[in-house]
C-alpha cells in the first residue's frame, strides 16, 4: 500500500524526530530511572495491609497501588513531553535542520505535523512501556492480569498531545523555560480546580457550604468548567483499570474538553508557524 505523498513526508519527518530525541543520553537516562522506580513498586504488592484492625482485600490494594503508579507515570510522561517539546524548534533552527528541511519540497504544515507526530508517538510509546512494566509486575508478582492498563495508556496519550501542542506553540512566543512553566501551571491549576470541585461536592463540603452564602458561579467553578481537564482525562483512563469500568457520558467530558483544546491549540500552532521567518 502506498502512503499519500503528503503523509509520506510527515511520517519521514516524524521518524527523524523520534531518532533525534531517542538518541539523547538525557532521554535514555530518564527512561532507565523511571523503569527502576517502577520496579521498586513491586514491594507494595506483597504483605498484608490492615485498616481499623481488619485485613484489607489484597485485590483492592493491588488495584489501588496500580492506579497510583498509573497516575505517577502519566504525570511524569507529561513532564517529559514538556521537556522534549520546549527546545525542538529552537534546536532545529540552531543546527540548520529547519532550513534544510524547508528548502526541500516540504511545506511548513508537513514540518510541524512531523514534529508533533514524532513526539506524540515517542512519548506514547514511552508511557505504554512504563505502564507495561506495571502490567507485568501485577501479572507476575500478584497474579492479577489487568490489560486495561494499555487502553488507559492510550487515553492518556491525549494529554501528551495537548502538552506537546501547547509547549510547541508557547515556545515560539516566549523563552523555552517559560513555556515549560506555563504548561506546568496549566496542569497545576487544573488539578486544583478538580480538587476544589470534588471537595465542594463531597458531603463535608456540602455541609460547610450550607452555612455560607451560596454562589454557584465562583471563580473555581468557572475554572473547573473551562480549564483543560488533564487530570480528568487521567482519572477517566485510570477508572478503566480494575473492575470499575467507567461511568458514561460524565467521564466523556474531559476527553471532549482536552480534544477541543488540542484542535484549537493545533490550529493556532500551524497558523503561528506559518508566519515565522526561517533562518
Amino acid at each position: 500500500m502506498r502512503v499519500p505523498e503528503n503523509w509520506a513526508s510527515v511520517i519521514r519527518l516524524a521518524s527523524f524526530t523520534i531518532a533525534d530525541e531517542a538518541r539523547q543520553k538525557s532521554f535514555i537516562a530518564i527512561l532507565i530511572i523511571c523503569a527502576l522506580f517502577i520496579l521498586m513498586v513491586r514491594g507494595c504488592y506483597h504483605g498484608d495491609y490492615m485498616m481499623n484492625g481488619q485485613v484489607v482485600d489484597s485485590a483492592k490494594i493491588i488495584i489501588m497501588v496500580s492506579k497510583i503508579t498509573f497516575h505517577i507515570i502519566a504525570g511524569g510522561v507529561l513532564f517529559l513531553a514538556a521537556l522534549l517539546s520546549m527546545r525542538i524548534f529552537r534546536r532545529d533552527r540552531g543546527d540548520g535542520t529547519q532550513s534544510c528541511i524547508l528548502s526541500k519540497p516540504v511545506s511548513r504544515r508537513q514540518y510541524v505535523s512531523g514534529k508533533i507526530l514524532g513526539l506524540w508517538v515517542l512519548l506514547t510509546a514511552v508511557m505504554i512501556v512504563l505502564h507495561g512494566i506495571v502490567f507485568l509486575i501485577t501479572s507476575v508478582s500478584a497474579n492479577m492480569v489487568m490489560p486495561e492498563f494499555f487502553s488507559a495508556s492510550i487515553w492518556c496519550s491525549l494529554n501528551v498531545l495537548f502538552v506537546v501542542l501547547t509547549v510547541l506553540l508557547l515556545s515560539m512566543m516566549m523563552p523555552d523555560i517559560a513555556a515549560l512553566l506555563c504548561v506546568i501551571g496549566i496542569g497545576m491549576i487544573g488539578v486544583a480546580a478538580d480538587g476544589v470541585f470534588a471537595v465542594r461536592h463531597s458531603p463535608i463540603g456540602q455541609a460547610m457550604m450550607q452555612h455560607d452564602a451560596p454562589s454557584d458561579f465562583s471563580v473555581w467553578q468557572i475554572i473547573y468548567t473551562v480549564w483543560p481537564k488533564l487530570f480528568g482525562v487521567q482519572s477517566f483512563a485510570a477508572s478503566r483499570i480494575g473492575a470499575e469500568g467507567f461511568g458514561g457520558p460524565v467521564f466523556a467530558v474531559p476527553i471532549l474538553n482536552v480534544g477541543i483544546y488540542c484542535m484549537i491549540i493545533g490550529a493556532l500552532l500551524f497558523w503561528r508557524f506559518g508566519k515565522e521567518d526561517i533562518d
Partner: protein
Amino acid sequence: MIELDAVTKKYGSLVAVDNVSFSVGAGECFALLGPNGAGKTTIVKLLLDFTRPTAGHLSLNGLSTTNAKSRAFVGYLPENHRIPTHLSGWQYLKRCAALLDIKGADADKQCQWAVTLTGMQGREHDKSGTYSKGMIQRFGLGAALIGRPKLLILDEPAAGLDPIGIRDIRRLLESLKKDGMTVFLNSHLLSEVEKICDNAAVIRRGRLMVRDKISSLVRDGDTLEDVFIRFVKEG
C-alpha cells in the same frame, strides 16, 4: 526559472527589499551582488518561502514560492551552513535524499556521487562535530546537489573555504553550468563570480541598481569589482 515581480519586503519600518523585479532563465548562471545589508539574503529567503513578501509575487519553475512543490527541483546551500553534530556527513546526505523521496540503492548512489563530487571521500562517516567549517560547507553543497536539481541557489558558497576549496567549487559550478543547471549565486567573491557567471544584478539598500550580462557591465579593462564599487558608491 526564477521570477520576481515588484517584490517588497519590510521589517517594521525597515525596507529590506524595495520593489525589485527581475528574472533568471533556465540554464543561466546568475549572480546577485550587493554590499552587506543590501537585501541579498532576504531575496534568497523570499525565493525559498522562508519569509513572505510584503508586496509583489515570486515564482520558481512557474509555481508560486508559497507552493512547496516549487522547491522540488531546487538545491540550496545557505550562508553559514550547519549540520546537526550527532549526524555524520553521510547520514545528513541520506536524510536530504529521503526528504526528496529518494530511497534505497538510488539514495546510496546519489550520496556517493555527492561525496565524490565535493571531495569528501574518507570523511563521510565521521560525526559532523569533527568537521571544519570548509568541510561542512562541502557537505552542504553535496546535500544541495542531491536529487540533481534544475536550480541551485547558493548563498556565499565559498564562505569558510581555503583557496583550493574555492577553486574546487568554481570548477564544480562550471561543470554544473555545462550540464545546463541554473545557478543563482549570492557572493562577495567578485573575482570568482566574474569567472563563473554570465549575468549579474547589483542591489543596494534593497533596490535593484542594474541587471545585465557581466560582459556588458565590465568594459574597458575594468573588473567586476570596479563595476560593483561604482554602482554601490555612486548609486
